[in-house]
């Protein structure tokens, strides 16, 4: 006996026009998963339609009676107009409610999927990524608010000198004291709950970066919370990067992310965002290829500045890293070659022999 897939394949094989195939795929997707619910919804909507029609139309015997008794069909129609309208409203409302339920399965499964997601990498669409970000922001905010008294307590127990020492000896120099203070200040001044939460979390994370031992004083934090914060950052950066891509144009944004001489602050996160956007199909490999080529054209091929080759050699390693991150390392190699590097030099950069 043929199964459903065989039957679908058979139907599909009989279609020739592109529009027909697309419609077939749409219909097949619509029927997937909750067929029974869709069938029941259709049956009930049809039944309501029939009932409403029968209830609002004057039947032949009624019409002939009116005619026999010398009345007017129009007059009678006017008398029953309000009940007809009420029947129409009930039918429309019930149909809408049923249709909503019919669609609920898809929405729900998407929400369930987002709830189960462990990282942004699992998002299959921009909508899922946004829903995941929203979910994280809510958790993130809750953590930020919880930390407020701890930050205050911490700040009251530490001297300016000790803080400076932590900044200097901290294993991660990404954040400095001014940044921490700025975030705390912003959090104190913020009125919006969400903005306030973000500043607190940034401040906590920045403080934690100043010294790993600090976490013992701050709280007995667990790995899950730390992971959430990290993911929150990545997320925040990703959302911001998408906004910038929209504003500046994808090509400009990627070229900016390629530039090894720009500030290192946040650079890795931005490169992550390009890689993530590519993975999610928000930007295509062709767009990345075009942006990389334009970057090389402007900086190393059509530009005649004196230290071009020297800079190219110094940047090759970084550029190859970015290429790997964006999934387009061959495009970078091709452009490095076009800009004047030999195969040997490219290989050396790739194996980090300049280090």
């Amino acid at each position, binding site marked *: 006996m043929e199964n459903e897939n065989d039957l679908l394949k058979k139907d599909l094989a009989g279609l020739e026009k592109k529009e027909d195939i697309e419609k077939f795929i749409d219909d097949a997707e619509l029927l997937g998963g909750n067929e*029974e619910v869709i069938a029941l919804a259709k049956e009930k909507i049809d039944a309501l339609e029939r009932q409403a029609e029968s209830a609002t139309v004057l039947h032949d015997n009624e019409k002939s009676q009116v005619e026999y*008794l010398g009345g007017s069909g129009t007059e009678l129609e006017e008398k029953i107009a309000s*009940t007809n309208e009420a029947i129409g409203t009930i*039918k429309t409302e019930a149909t809408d409610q049923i249709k909503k339920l019919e669609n609920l399965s898809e929405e729900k499964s998407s929400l369930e999927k987002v709830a189960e997601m462990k990282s942004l990498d699992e998002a299959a669409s921009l909508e899922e990524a946004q829903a995941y970000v929203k979910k994280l922001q809510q958790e993130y905010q809750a953590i930020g608010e919880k930390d407020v008294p701890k930050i205050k307590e911490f700040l009251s127990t530490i001297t300016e000198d000790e803080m400076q020492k932590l900044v200097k000896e901290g294993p991660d120099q990404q954040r400095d004291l001014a940044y921490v203070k700025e975030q705390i200040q912003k959090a104190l001044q913020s009125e919006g709950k969400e903005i306030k939460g973000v500043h607190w979390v940034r401040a906590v994370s920045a403080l934690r970066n100043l010294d790993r031992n600090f976490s013992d004083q701050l709280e007995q934090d667990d790995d899950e919370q730390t992971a959430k914060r990290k993911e929150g950052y990545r997320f925040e950066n990703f959302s911001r990067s998408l906004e910038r891509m929209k504003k500046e144009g994808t090509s400009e944004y990627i070229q900016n992310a390629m530039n090894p001489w720009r500030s290192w602050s946040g650079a890795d996160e931005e490169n992550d965002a390009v890689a993530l956007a590519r993975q999610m199909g928000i930007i295509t490999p062709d767009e990345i290829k075009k942006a990389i080529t334009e970057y090389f054209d402007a900086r190393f091929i059509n530009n005649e500045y004196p230290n071009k080759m020297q800079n190219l050699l110094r940047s090759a390693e970084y550029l190859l890293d970015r290429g790997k991150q964006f999934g387009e390392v061959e495009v970078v190699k091709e452009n490095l070659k076009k800009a004047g590097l030999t195969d040997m030099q490219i290989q050396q950069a790739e194996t980090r022999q300049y280090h």
Partner: protein
Amino acid sequence: MTDDEKKQKIEEIYETARQKILELEKQQKEIIKQYLQGLEQKKIEALRKEITNSF
């Protein structure tokens, strides 16, 4: 919401709407009945007058 819950909810929505429409249909039949009775009454009156006048 599971598929079974959804099916149950669809049945509930349908049944509620069906009952409401039935109720309105009943009201409508009553309006039609009254209209027809009114016409009938008028016709009877007219016939009565016609008979009276013929004497």
